[in-house]
């Protein structure tokens, strides 16, 4: 379980990116965060694994305080949290398998990891992660030679290779075309259902959010302005989150607007 307890983040520049957020995310839930660009979605997601330090309040992940965790504790916590990025963040010049094996670094000793002597069991886990996202045939291909959708699936495999209990996805489909976006969202949904991994996704597109996630929270200028189901999220709710009416730009596919 993830608990936000009056969590706030102020960046060094003085931007108040998260304001007094309190929130509970039970295990196994798939939750989406929507909000305008700059609303604080990325900040909220990075507060969970401590990539962005809190300036007030706390976030408790499986009983561990992110704010009070030491460097070592934080690394241990992060090893249980997989992360997926908008720009994939793959090392383009190395193989897909090497990228996925980055998810096993946390259990690999320093000397071993410097030379790339991963244990066979770790390689097996990485291969299985690639199989789960259906891209194992590219294991020895350079990541640079993959399409955007394929690269994001490798990104998911890297997160899966950590054998995480939580997956954080920061706008995982924002760099992809609509059909590929659906493939990636379906992968995430399947992983959430099959493996029971708590999955938290930032999405820009509302229709996609409503199709794939039971729970939606809305952020506006760092404040929590909505927390409910997709079904309840009607035009009025979106006006609250976005400060304006829904437009075609807020949707992945205009025709599927209900």
């Amino acid at each position, binding site marked *: 379980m993830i608990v936000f307890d009056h969590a706030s983040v102020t960046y060094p520049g003085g931007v108040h990116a998260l304001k007094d957020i309190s929130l509970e995310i039970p295990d196994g839930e798939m939750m989406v965060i929507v909000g305008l660009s700059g609303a604080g979605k990325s900040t909220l997601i990075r507060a969970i694994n401590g990539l962005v330090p809190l300036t007030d309040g706390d976030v408790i992940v499986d009983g561990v305080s992110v704010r009070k965790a030491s460097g070592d504790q934080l690394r241990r916590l992060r090893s249980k949290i997989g992360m997926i990025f908008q720009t994939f963040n793959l090392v383009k*010049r190395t193989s897909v398998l090497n990228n996925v094996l980055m998810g096993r670094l946390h259990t690999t000793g320093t000397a071993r990891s410097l030379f790339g002597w991963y244990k066979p069991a770790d390689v097996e886990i990485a*291969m*299985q992660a690639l*199989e789960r996202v*259906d891209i*194992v*045939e*590219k*294991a*020895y291909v350079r990541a640079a030679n993959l399409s955007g959708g394929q690269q994001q699936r490798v990104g998911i495999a890297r997160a899966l290779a950590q054998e995480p209990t939580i997956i954080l996805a920061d706008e995982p489909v924002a760099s992809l075309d609509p059909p590929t976006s659906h493939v990636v969202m379906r992968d995430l949904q399947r992983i959430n259902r099959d493996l029971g991994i708590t999955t938290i996704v930032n999405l820009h597109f509302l229709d996609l959010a409503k199709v794939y996630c039971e729970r939606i929270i809305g952020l506006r200028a760092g404040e929590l302005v909505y927390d409910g189901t997709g079904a309840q999220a009607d035009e009025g709710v979106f006006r609250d989150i976005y400060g304006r009416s829904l437009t075609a730009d807020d949707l992945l596919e205009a025709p599927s607007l209900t």
Partner: protein
Amino acid sequence: MNGTNNAGPPRESRPRRPSNAKRNVAFIFALLVIVGSVLSVDIKYERLVDLPAGIWLVVYKMYFERGPDLSYLGVSIEHMVQSIEIAWVGTIIGAVLSLPIGFVAAKNVSSGIISNVFRQVLNGIRAFPELVLAVAIFIPIAGLGPVAGALAIGIHSVGTLGKLTAEVVEGIDAGPVEAARASGGRWVQIQRWGVLPQVLPEIVAFWLYRFEINIRAAAVLGVVGAGGIGFIVQQTIVFGRFPLAGTALLVVIIATILVDTVSGWVRRRIIEGVETRRIVDAEIEQPALVDGSAA
């Protein structure tokens, strides 16, 4: 695809690990060259034990025994100024000669055979260090002294500067050249108005960068009598006058860092964001390297 294919174990669809044979061969070759070098070099390995003490002793005698001899500061600065002048004149010689040669050596604005010939000439010049040029050519011509040093530095600089110039010219946007040609310009006019404005800032940055390198070269030319501070550094060390050597060395270090700082500052103003790395990247021939991250 393999979601439906449940017959075989999942491993079947996994690719084979590609072989590393080529890399291993290169690796073994490199290893052989290294081992051969270790065996052939005539190092008295027992002397390695005394190495740290020996180095420390020199540093100690230069700076700590009685401190560097500051009465030598004036002489040192005088000689360092001469080194800077040698580097300055040498860089100008290099720049003036390399600019036309660089254009002629560029494939896109010159013709195939001519550019190839000039490229080889430039490569040939680069093969000889300044000291070799000074000893074998310019001291015999100009006699011992700073003029020989400046000429040696100048000619050596033509090699690198010409090559860099050619490479920058080859990287230009072809549009303006075509426009200048379409408007009926002559070759020289096309170069002057279509090409030069595109490449000049970068080339001037190369000149300044070369000046920074030439400072270092000019600081050692004195060991063969071609002027500058190298002469007194050598003499003081050879005759064991380490406090004097310490002062001279200090002057070299401070002057070089000063010149680097000023020249680097000017370079960055001339072209926003041009770093030495890009300049050296251009000097390293790297057709296979060109990719997003190197640019």
